[in-house]
C-alpha cells in the first residue's frame, strides 16, 4: 500500500511537471497567431498586393499561414515546427482572400496573424477544376496575365508581383519558397517553364472601381520634356 501511494505520488508530480512544462513546447504560431477574419464583398488586385507586401521578408512554414510585420524570419532554421510564415499556397490563399470552405466563391479577409492555410495545395491551383474560385489561364503570355495572377506547378505557386519585368527577362514574383529563403519577391522564370501554368482568381473587382472609365484600366502616359 505504501509503495502504491508513493508510486501514485511520483506519477502525479510527474504529470504536474509535464503540465507546467507545456509552455516550453509552445510553437511560435501558437504564441503569436491570434488574428481574426471576416467576410468581405470584393477584392481589388491593388489591395491584394498591398496585403502580400506585409509578408515579404517574413518566414516560411510548410502548411503555415501566419506572420507578423517585422521584416525578418522569427523562426529561422526551424522547418515544420509551427514557425512564422506561410507556405506558397497559404500565401496565395490569404492574399486572394479565398474562403476556407473548399470550392466556395466569395471573399474573406484574414489578419496576417491569423494562422490559416486554407484547403488548397499548389497542385490544386495548378490543376484547377471549374467549380473552384480560381481558374487556369489558356496562355501564359504577358498579354494573358497581369499582376496578382499566379504561376503554379504541382509543388509550388507564386504570384506575379508587378507587370514590371526585369531587363534580363522573367518576372518579379512574390512567393513563400522554403524555410531557408522565407517569403520574398524574387526574379523567376516560371512563365517560360512548362511545369508552371498561369492561374487567375475569379471575381476580381477592377482597381478603378467604383469610378472606372469606359474601357477600364487603360495605361496612362505622361510625357517628360
Amino acid at each position, binding site marked *: 500500500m505504501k509503495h502504491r501511494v508513493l508510486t501514485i505520488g511520483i506519477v502525479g508530480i510527474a504529470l504536474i511537471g509535464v503540465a507546467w512544462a507545456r509552455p516550453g513546447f509552445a510553437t511560435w504560431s501558437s504564441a503569436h497567431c491570434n488574428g481574426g477574419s471576416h467576410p468581405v464583398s470584393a477584392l481589388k488586385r491593388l489591395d491584394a498586393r498591398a*496585403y502580400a507586401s*506585409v509578408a515579404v521578408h517574413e518566414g516560411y512554414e*510548410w502548411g503555415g499561414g501566419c506572420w507578423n510585420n517585422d521584416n525578418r524570419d522569427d523562426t529561422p532554421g526551424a522547418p515544420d515546427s509551427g514557425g512564422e510564415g506561410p507556405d506558397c499556397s497559404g500565401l496565395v490563399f490569404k492574399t486572394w482572400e479565398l474562403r476556407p470552405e473548399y470550392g466556395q466563391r466569395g471573399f474573406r479577409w484574414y489578419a496576417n496573424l491569423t494562422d490559416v492555410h486554407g484547403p488548397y495545395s499548389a497542385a490544386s491551383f495548378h490543376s484547377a477544376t471549374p467549380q473552384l474560385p480560381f481558374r487556369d489561364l489558356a*496562355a*501564359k503570355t504577358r498579354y494573358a496575365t497581369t499582376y496578382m495572377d499566379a504561376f503554379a506547378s504541382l509543388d509550388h505557386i507564386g504570384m506575379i508581383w508587378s507587370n514590371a519585368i526585369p*531587363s*534580363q527577362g522573367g518576372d518579379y514574383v512574390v512567393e513563400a519558397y*522554403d524555410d531557408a529563403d522565407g517569403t520574398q519577391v524574387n526574379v523567376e522564370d516560371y512563365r517560360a517553364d512548362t511545369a508552371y501554368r498561369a492561374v487567375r482568381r475569379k471575381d476580381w473587382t477592377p482597381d478603378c472601381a467604383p469610378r472606372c472609365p469606359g474601357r477600364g484600366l487603360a495605361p496612362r502616359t505622361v510625357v517628360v*520634356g
Partner: protein
Amino acid sequence: MTVVAGVVVACCVATIWGVAVAQAGQSLTTAAADGRVRIFYTAPILVRAGERVLVAVDAVCATARGGPCPAVVTMHAGAGRRSYHTASAAASPGLRFDLSAAAADAVSGRATSGFVRFSIEANAGAARASVPPDNGAPLLFYVARSVPAVKVPDVPFARERRGRAVLSLPWGNGPNRAGIALGGGDPPVGPSAFDVDGAGRVFLLDTEQSRLGVFSAGRLVRSTPLALAPRSDIALSPGGTAFVLARGADGRVDLTRVSPGTAAQTVSADAAGIPGAIRAVGGAAYVHVFPLDAWLPVAGTSATRAPEAPSVGRPLPGGRELLSVVRGRRLRLGTVVGGRVRHAVELVFRRALGELALAAPDRAGGYWAVVHVWRDRPRPADAFQAVHVRGRRVVSTFLLPSDGYTPDAPQSALRIGPNGGLYQLLTSADGVRVVRYRIGGER
C-alpha cells in the same frame, strides 16, 4: 517603331524597393511608420533612335497593416547638355512616362549613339523611395542609331544538343555527392550555381552541404565550408578567387570572398534588394541587383567605379559594358565603349522568350547569348537556345535542355569558361551534372 517601343515598355520594368542601395555604410530607408513605398520601373537599357520610349513605373505603396496607400511618382530625365525635364503623376499600375524627347536629344547632331540620364522618385506622405537611391548617380539608357534586327532560326524542341559531362555527382552527403533538401511539399533545393576556371575545374555552390566544392576531372580536390543561402551565385576571378552572392538578412545582399588557401571572408554588404548575378572582371566583382536592375561594384574588390555609381551594362575588361535586354520576342545586345554604343544588334526570335541566361562578347564584335525559349501551343515546350551572332549574321544556334530537378538562381545555370567552352548545370532525380558544349573558338 511605336509598336516596338510599346513592347519595350511592356516588357522591361523593374522593381525598386524603397531601400534599394545603402551607400557608404548608411541604410537608406524609405519606410514610414505607417508603411512604405516601392518603385517598379521600366529599364529601357538600349533603344533605337526614333523609337518611342515609354517607361512604365509602378510604385507600390502599402501601409503597415497591408492596405494600399496613394503615392505620387516623379520622373526626371535629360540628355546631352539639355537640363533635366520633370513630370509627375499619381501612381497606378498602368502609369508610363514617355522619354522619347530625351532619347532624341541623346542622338542629336551627328552622334551615332548617346545616352539619357534619368531618375525616379515616389512620395507617399512620410514614405519615400527613389531610383537610384538618394545621392546616387542617375541611371542611364543608351540610344543607338543602328540596331540591326537579325532573325534567329527556330530549332525544333526535340532537337536538343547533348553536352559532354565534366562533372556528375549523385545526390547525398559526402565529398563526391551533391546535397539536396527534399521538403514535405516544397520544391527540392540543390546546388544553386557554378563557375569554371581556366583549367576546367568546376566550382560548385553546394548549398545543402554548406560548401564551395572544387572538382577536377570529376573528383573533389578542395572544399571550403560556407554557409550558403539558396539562390546564391558565384563568379571566379582569373586569380582563382571566388566571389559568392547571396540574399542576406533584412533584404540585404551578402557578398563573400573565398581565396585559395584562406577562409571565406565577407567582403561587403553595401547593397540591398534581390540578388541577381555576380561577375568578376579581373580582381573586381560586380553584382546585378534587382529591382535596381543595374550592376553595382563590390567594395573591397578592385572595382574602380565609385560605390554609388550603378551601371546598366555588365562591366567588361577595359572599362567596357555589355548591354543586354529582353523585349518580348526580341533580345538586344550592345557594347558600351567610352560612352558610345558599339556592335548593337537585335535578335528576333519566333518563339516567346523567358530569362536571358547568358550573354557574352565573342572577342570579334559578336556575341554569344543563351535565352530561355518557350511556347504554349500546340503543346507546352521550353528549352534554352544558344545563339552566336556576329554583325548581321547568326553564326550558329542550337538548343540546350532546360529542365531542372532543383531550381537554380537566375543567370546561374550557364557559363562560358575561360577556355571558351559553354558549360551548363543540370539536375535530375539522380543528381547533378555539369556538361560542356563545344561552341568553337575553344582554347
